[in-house]
């Protein structure tokens, strides 16, 4: 009896800890939505909690918020999707080769990719990177983000995918080879179906990284119409007079693509991370 009681008390304690932690994680989200419904008057009166539902200013705030960030959301979607797609194609092919074949230079390639994880780029790398971009004539060009997003995604993706592909039984590949399948067919028919969940998880993580990238766009873009979400938000933040309602609505709009992404992939993502395949 007392043991059961102790157990249930321990259960409540754990729930308490988790709810406390999640409360702090969710509070900014709630504040953002609450303020995005407020006029300036309402904000001054009651900044951090919801008003009565009848007094919400959804349409006015959100349409203005949408207008301020619309272009940047479009830019971010294009560059992030491009970067992730390119990163995944490159990483799958490279890890397939590294996992399946021995050839001269294999170690060099593998450790060359993995080693850059421990050669962190400092702020000084941004200088030389900027110089490189300028010499290539890629300043003010959305392609820059796609290229750098794809390359910077290689390290973690190859590290994880290579291990994953090594675990696929050799016989599968060998029998496909006997049937005359080329490299691309083997990747398409064996690697992709078997590593779907880990690929999806990696893609989502990389998408988040690309979506949140600030420094590169900050030094590369000059024209406002090329600004991505973080840049545009930073620019809005710099305004002296802030109308918090539309501003927060704008913030919320920039989260919508990620909401949609997670809505469809949540199950896969939780499973992918829980499988312990993503380490480091």
């Amino acid at each position, binding site marked *: 009896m007392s043991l059961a009681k102790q157990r249930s008390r321990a259960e409540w304690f754990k729930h308490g800890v988790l709810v406390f932690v999640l409360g*702090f994680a969710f509070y900014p989200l709630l*504040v953002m939505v609450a303020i995005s419904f407020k006029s300036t008057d309402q904000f001054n009166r009651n900044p951090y909690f919801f008003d009565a539902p009848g007094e919400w200013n959804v349409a006015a705030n959100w349409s203005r918020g949408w207008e301020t960030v619309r272009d940047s959301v479009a830019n971010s979607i294009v560059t992030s999707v491009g970067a992730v797609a390119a990163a995944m194609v490159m990483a799958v092919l*490279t890890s397939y080769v590294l996992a399946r074949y021995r050839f001269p230079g294999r170690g060099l390639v593998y450790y060359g990719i993995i080693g850059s994880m421990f050669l962190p780029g400092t702020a000084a790398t941004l200088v030389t990177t900027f110089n490189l971009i300028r010499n290539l004539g890629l300043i003010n060009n959305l392609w820059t983000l796609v290229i750098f997003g794809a390359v910077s995604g290689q390290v973690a993706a190859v590290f994880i995918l290579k291990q994953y592909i090594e675990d696929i039984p050799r016989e599968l590949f060998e029998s496909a080879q006997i049937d005359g399948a080329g490299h691309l067919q083997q990747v398409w028919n064996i690697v992709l179906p078997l590593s779907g969940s880990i690929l999806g998880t990696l893609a989502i993580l990389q998408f988040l990284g690309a979506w949140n990238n600030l420094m590169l766009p900050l030094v590369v873009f000059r024209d406002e119409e090329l600004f991505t979400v973080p840049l545009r938000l930073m620019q809005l933040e710099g305004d002296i007079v802030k109308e918090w309602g539309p501003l927060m609505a704008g913030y919320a709009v920039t989260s919508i693509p990620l909401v949609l992404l997670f809505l469809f992939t949540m199950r896969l993502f939780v499973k992918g991370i829980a499988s312990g395949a993503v380490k480091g």
Partner: protein
Amino acid sequence: MSSILTTAPPAAPDPGNTPRPPATTAAPAPSRRRRSAVFSKLRHWSVLYLLMGATVVGMVVFSYYPKIDVVLRSFYRWEPQYIEDYIGWEHYKNIFTQDPLFWQSFRLVVILLLANLVKMWPSVFAAIALHRLRSDRARYVYQVLFVVPMVIPVMVWLLIWKSFFEAEGGIVNGFLNATGLMSLLHWLDGSPAVDVATGQRVSSGGMPWLAERVSAFDQAVLQPVVGGVWGLIALGGMVAVLSPGWRSIGRRWLAWVFLLGYALWAWGGAAPPLRDSPGAVVVGSLLVPAGWLWLPMMFAVALGVVAWLRRGPALVREDRVRWVGGVLIAAGAAVVLLGKVWTEPVGGFGEGQPSWLGNSRLIVPTLILWGFPWVGTVGVLLYLAGLQQISKDVYEAAELDGVGPVGMVFRIELPLILTMFRINLIFMTIGTLTGYEMNLILFGPEGGTNNAAMVPGLYIFWQSFYESKFGYACALGMVMFTMILVLTIIYQRYVRVEK
């Protein structure tokens, strides 16, 4: 490119699988056959290289080239579009002799690093709580809930938190005022007063009052005995290194010699570390006035004798040695925290609107408090993945052995996620040392009031894109990179996974 790949002949079979021709027919042209085998191998390899081509070229051009370029450019006076001269080691000389702000920024980053070492733990405990839930269903719900906050772009998250810390109408000040904690802070802060007799500012009450007493103790007792509080910490470290936790004698001596050097500097210069540049540190430790030396040397010799004796039969109980060392370090840390941090009234608490992001003395506490309760949602899920490899039997066996719920944290759960923890530790360290985006967004390129939020990364960014000193920024980057490399190597050696 893909058309090349698809028209390329299907994979040449593995070298091992190459069908060997029957010996009888092989006689006429062995060399030609060998050449065709070599040729097919080459063709096989070139297809492989082609498949990896995009990654390899991309990494070389966009990842390695800029990093190597940093090394080369650090020897140039490079102010874009006008000047590009080779100047040798001049930048490095300037960094070590006339750039106090860079070294000041390292002081902040060391504080942040220490804070982050503490801030890593809540994620671990949250993951353990999540792992120990009895209901699988509830756990899944929590897992999903932990993912949801990731939908907010990092920038939005930062800006919302920034609005929480605003002086007027910010939620932090609102909370402090509503709960009465603000008046507690005001009381702790004391208020500046002027001594009528001497005309000097004296503090009246609270933490500054305590700080005066503590630093009086520091000067009266610690300075003459061990050369100040940093000497006390060094002494504690030297004692602690003698304890049995350090298994190999060689490693122990290495750490000990390192600490001795540090102690000599602390005792000799009696200057807090990181206030002056490392160059000055090295020189200073060589030029210590001889009068200072006798006491630390006595300690060093005594401790050395103890360490040497410990190879034979133990004279001192080893765990007691460790305790003494720990107590000395803790006492030193307490003196630093109480005597050297909150030394003057900050002000602003009395009006109920301290400016957390504007007041240069509140910026560091704000950075430390930032993100309370410091649970990274992805981190929790990754730790959970590690924890779920523990089988139920282990828990039952531990329970039979009488291990309580707290004991299990240290006996079962922490050892199992140690690998992951170590990886996180390395990346957290690299991230803290190189990171500057948050400081840039919150405080601007010059690091806020009095450059209080200036971290090395931000300083480099400022030197390059605001002062146009590209070459100098590269040299600064090299100094920072070297430090990171050293730290990573130390981690690799000392933060071992012990199974």
